[in-house]
């Protein structure tokens, strides 16, 4: 246990499956680097898995920005099982007293993080879109001279709430570590620094006598050909597209541009496109070089997932649609007319 908890490290959970890291740990390390430098502490990556996972992945974590890799290897941790991971993680936090622990808001992160926070009786903010360090003025708690108490350098956890209609800043200034899950695709990874290295610390799993009530019988991986997060250009449609048949037009435009096709929640609910294509607060967050929005009115929850795109073209028949408020180019017109013109122009000029 650390005496002065403000000296504790900033940690990110480096989730892995089958010995592979997704983009998420790199994104978390990108943000974690910023937080750790601001606080003047080390950035740690917590890597949990079966035998050999450390040898395989530690160097990638150092190159992505970690100063320390806290490694727990055990055959019982080969596949993710909530209780086993939770138990080992909680013991590790008790041993090392990090001041901040962040997880990806992935299926695994959203299973593990709440259980860890519950066991430690500390706060947890879900699905953050930004994290900052700042001071917190506690109006409920006053100092002897009557002024409000100020807690220095706490983690400001920023997240949309209420269907994306408000942005809340949450703090947990007293029950540490301060914990948060972070939306996928929101934080920017650092450019990998080949050859960058750090300290590898092995820890025991401490699972002796812990009964694990879950046996994983089978895992069937989905190999989706849809990769919105990696696409440079995205053509997305909403309810205004009108039918599944009309959605083919968006695919034609995407093909002409070498881009991917996405949809708003309404388009997914109406069956115009697959769930994997959903962009927004409850779908994926994207920031492509070019986002072409077709027949999407622009609900706040959708805008949350695409408004950081470098260039946004909005096509909509309703000139008052909120989508135009985030657009760089606006075309008030029928997408069934505009898209063919666009495809024609691309083929002529491209």
């Amino acid at each position, binding site marked *: 246990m650390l005496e002065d908890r403000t000296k504790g490290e900033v940690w990110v959970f480096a989730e892995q499956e089958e010995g592979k890291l997704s983009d998420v740990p790199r994104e978390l390390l990108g943000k974690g680097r910023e937080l750790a430098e601001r606080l003047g502490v080390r950035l740690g990556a917590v890597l949990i898995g079966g035998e050999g996972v450390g040898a395989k992945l530690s160097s990638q974590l150092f190159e992505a920005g970690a100063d320390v890799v806290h490694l727990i290897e055990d055959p019982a941790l080969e596949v993710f099982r*909530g209780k086993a991971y939770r138990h080992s993680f909680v013991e590790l936090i008790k041993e090392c007293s990090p001041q901040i622990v962040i997880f990806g808001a992935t299926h695994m992160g959203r299973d593990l993080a709440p259980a860890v926070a519950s066991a430690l009786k*500390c706060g947890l903010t879900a699905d953050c879109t930004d994290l900052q360090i700042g001071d917190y003025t506690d109006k409920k708690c006053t100092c002897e001279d009557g002024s409000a108490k100020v807690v220095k350098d706490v983690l400001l956890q920023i997240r949309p709430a209420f*269907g994306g209609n408000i942005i809340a800043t949450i703090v947990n200034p007293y029950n540490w570590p301060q914990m948060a899950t972070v939306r996928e695709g929101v934080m920017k990874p650092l450019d990998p620094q080949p050859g960058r290295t750090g300290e590898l610390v092995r820890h025991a799993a401490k699972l002796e006598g812990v009964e694990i009530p879950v046996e994983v019988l089978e895992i069937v991986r989905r190999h989706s050909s849809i990769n919105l997060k990696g696409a440079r250009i995205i053509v997305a449609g909403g309810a205004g597209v009108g039918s599944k048949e009309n959605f083919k037009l968006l695919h034609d435009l995407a093909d002409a541009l070498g881009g991917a096709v996405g949809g708003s929640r309404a388009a997914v609910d109406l069956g115009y496109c697959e769930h994997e294509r959903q962009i927004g607060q409850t779908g994926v967050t994207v920031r492509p070089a070019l986002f072409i929005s077709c027949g999407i009115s622009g609900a706040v929850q959708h805008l949350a997932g695409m408004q950081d795109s470098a260039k946004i073209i909005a096509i909509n028949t309703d000139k008052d649609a909120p989508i135009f408020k985030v657009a760089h180019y606006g075309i008030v017109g029928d997408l069934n007319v505009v898209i063919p013109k666009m495809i024609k122009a691309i083929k002529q000029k491209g």
Partner: protein
Amino acid sequence: MNAQTKGREGGYNCVVCIKQVPDTKKVTGEAMKPDGTINRAALPAIFNPEDQNALEAALRVKELYGGTVTAIAMGLPAACAILREALMCGADKAYLVTDRKAAGSDTLATSYILSCAVKKLNPDLVFCGRQAIDGDTAQTGPQIAEKLDFAAITYLEDIEMDGDHAIATRDIGTGVEKDRVKLPALFTVTEKFGELRPYEVRRVMKYKKAMAPVENGGVALEGDLAIGQLSCDDIGAEADRCGFAGSPTNVNKIVSVVLAGGDYKEVAPTDEGVGALVSELIADHTIG
């Protein structure tokens, strides 16, 4: 799901945690106040969508393997509305957990209070919706399980029973996993499980009259029209772990999302307009 796998004698005692939430999908015009904040009163209060899927999971287990289904809601007395809905759909018993001491609870305090209530009912299976549409945290379910030391299975899509175990199919984001889970266990259920069955007309006629004492001048109704009412004391929840006192997270600031923008470049929906736009995008290497 099929009934080929074996249940066990007496079936399963299922508890479902449900929440009444403002319908955040309806946040439009009249639901926003002039200052940009949300007028909660203008939003209809609904049965949280994924909690309906959770209720369906419990009802299916009961239908195939026998047992009972008990619904619990924590909240203001108005939450009895969704407990009545649960009874109309087939729940056997309903409880409202309501207490001033619970006001201001974050997920940690909420999960503590609910875990105390669930414990009293001694269930084999607990079902929660994956997340509620007002907070979208997905934290309460896993935290209830941790506090009770129950197995926790998140993102449940299907379930079969096999004696003292459940065979659970869950979404792991990168695929689908099948688990053998020792009871007692808690499951968080997604919409992929399937929609909640419609009300039974006979039950609607009966349970529209169900009430908790708080709705009836403090008097409990007779028989199965009684919605049970529990305070923090009734379930043995310690006051310093409930409400504001038991909530480590504080809201520091709230900002309404107000779209500023509006100064986009207008492009005419003509060959010339679209052509010029495409040329501009090629020139700055956005495309091509």
